[in-house]
């Protein structure tokens, strides 16, 4: 099939340059307002519920969910939708269990919540290990995805694309901190939701705005099988395991949790999750239309002839229904999507390195504002360099499993300790610490021993561990470790501290004049 995809496209470049100019303009404005650590990490706690809802959606809807799911649905029909749904159902859990207590008990990172009632040093170190593992794998997946995508979309060399993404992201975070990152995420979310809505509208216009007519044509062309479960889910235990990691991992992603500190209070945090859930659910419903639209209008063979994984289904569909200008627009949106996600990840990594490790552990919380800001910015530069190097090092490798791995670690290392520290009086420092370490190590180890690494990547005949998704083992294991260790050696002081924090958990920090 002939497509303008991959050729330097004047309109795509224009849209892209406009986005970069606008976002760098915002960064300059934000850099004037970024005077303290509170601004750098938490945007001065001045973000509104609606803005944070959009920014959460912008932080969460990665290129994997836009291009990847549209492609998956285009190639395998119903099976692709299983991911769409799995990625949404974590949000109600964030709302019910995490968002408000997190906002009331912490300041910059989720580790603050644990450190509020447990001993600082061991808790900060253990949570940094889990957080940095999640952030690293997520970042590698995004950087490699960015390199491949930009090569396909704009025809730029892989390495150049990785360096550009790393450099632009560095500019946002280094100078504009959370204020710039938030606005990049808001703009990206508006562009992505708007672009996807317009694309779905143009597709449905061909089917007199009846999605069922679109699905019916897909089943006429490719058989009724595309509307029902196919080969993707073969092992029920693996399916449940993946579901657990997607659902609970969302509530353990450091860059998502960090966003709750940007709002003024827990009520705003609550409302913002409501908006985020609405936007993200709407977006994943659109993927039903985009995926089947690409299947019918572009055709499976044409999609796989450009990219075997199907990642170009949505851009090709944009070209098919809206011509080259719309392709340019959607390509620029995909680029913006990656930038917003890597900026959020880098900022949360910088917060872990500087706030959790340097300021709280090394300096014993005795660092002034200037030092906190300086260290946070040094950590940002370090992370940007590391992510560029890793992005180039992993060129040409299959990194699709790394997003799943990041969710598995987030669900096994961060979620159990966080939720127990909010709910359970008996949790001790040692319990939380071992739970986070065991969660990280077991998730990493079992992925290494799984068919994903052993069979698909190393080419061995069999894998020691049968499941591709370790969550069903590692999440209960992490909970069990936390509870057993805490029960074996209860610490009366820490239970007492939990009772003292109960009021703050509900009411937040109260100021007395």
């Amino acid at each position: 099939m002939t497509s303008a995809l991959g050729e330097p496209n004047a309109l795509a470049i224009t849209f892209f340059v406009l986005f970069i100019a606008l976002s760098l303009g915002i960064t300059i404005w934000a850099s004037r307002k970024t005077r303290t650590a509170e601004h750098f990490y938490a945007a001065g706690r001045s973000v509104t519920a609606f803005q944070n809802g959009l920014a959460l959606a912008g932080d969460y809807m990665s290129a994997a969910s836009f291009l990847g799911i549209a492609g998956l649905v285009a190639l395998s029909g119903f099976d692709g939708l299983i991911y769409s749904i799995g990625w949404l159902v974590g949000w109600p859990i964030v709302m019910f269990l995490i968002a408000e207590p997190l906002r009331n008990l912490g300041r910059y990172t989720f580790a603050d919540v644990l450190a509020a009632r447990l001993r600082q040093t061991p808790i900060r170190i253990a949570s940094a290990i889990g957080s940095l593992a999640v952030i690293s794998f997520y970042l590698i997946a995004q950087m490699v995805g960015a390199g491949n995508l930009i090569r396909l979309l704009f025809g730029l060399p892989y390495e150049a694309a990785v360096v550009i993404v790393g450099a632009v992201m560095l500019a946002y975070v280094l100078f504009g901190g959370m204020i710039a990152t938030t606005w990049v995420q808001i703009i990206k979310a508006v562009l992505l939701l708007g672009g996807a809505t317009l694309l779905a509208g143009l597709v449905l216009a061909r089917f007199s705005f009846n999605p069922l007519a679109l699905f019916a044509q897909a089943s006429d062309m490719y058989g009724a099988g595309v509307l029902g479960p196919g080969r993707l889910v073969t092992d029920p235990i693996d399916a449940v395991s993946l579901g657990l990691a997607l659902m609970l991992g969302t509530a353990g992603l450091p860059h998502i949790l960090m966003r709750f500190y940007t709002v003024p209070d827990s009520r705003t945090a609550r409302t913002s999750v409501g908006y985020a859930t609405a936007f993200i659910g709407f977006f994943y419903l659109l993927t039903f239309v985009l995926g089947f639209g690409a299947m019918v209008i572009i055709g499976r063979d044409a999609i796989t002839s450009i990219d075997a994984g199907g990642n170009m289904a949505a851009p090709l569909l944009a070209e098919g229904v809206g011509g080259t200008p719309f392709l340019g627009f959607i390509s620029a949106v995909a680029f913006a999507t990656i930038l917003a996600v890597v900026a959020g990840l880098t900022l949360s990594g910088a917060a872990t390195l500087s706030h959790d490790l340097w300021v709280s552990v090394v300096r014993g919380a005795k660092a002034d504002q200037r030092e906190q800001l300086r260290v946070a910015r040094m950590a940002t530069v370090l992370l940007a360099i590391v992510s560029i190097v890793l992005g180039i090092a992993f060129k040409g490798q299959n990194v699709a499993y790394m997003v799943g791995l990041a969710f598995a670690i987030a669900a096994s290392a961060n979620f159990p300790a966080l939720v127990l520290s909010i709910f359970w009086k008996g949790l001790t420092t040692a319990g939380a610490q071992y739970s986070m370490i065991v969660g990280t190590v077991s998730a990493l180890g079992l992925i290494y021993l799984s068919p994903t690494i052993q069979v698909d990547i190393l080419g061995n005949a069999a894998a020691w561990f049968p499941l591709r998704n370790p969550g069903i083992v590692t999440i209960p294991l992490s909970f069990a470790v936390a509870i057993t260790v805490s029960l074996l050696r209860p610490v009366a002081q820490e239970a007492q501290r939990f009772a003292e924090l109960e009021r703050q958990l509900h009411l937040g920090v109260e100021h007395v004049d």
Partner: protein
Amino acid sequence: MPTSTLEAVSAARWRIAISLTVAMMAVYFGFVLLVAFNKPLLGRIVTRGLSLGMLLGALVILVAWVLTWIYVRWANTHYDASLKTLRAGRPAERPR
């Protein structure tokens, strides 16, 4: 009438949180288990162009919205009212 002791507010908050979490997990894992164990059922066509699986999948998203909405409604009316009485009822502690 909003509850007024910290213990009562806390208990009510967690009761709601746990019930809604369990509901969300039951609905989602019910769907996943159907996908895993009863593919023919989900592949059944409800009406032209719509399989039972797609209908249920869209319903899971709808349920996620509805449960979130129920929580926000509850929190905005009952929880916030209780927090207000709590705040008024006792002089606030000095922040640490």
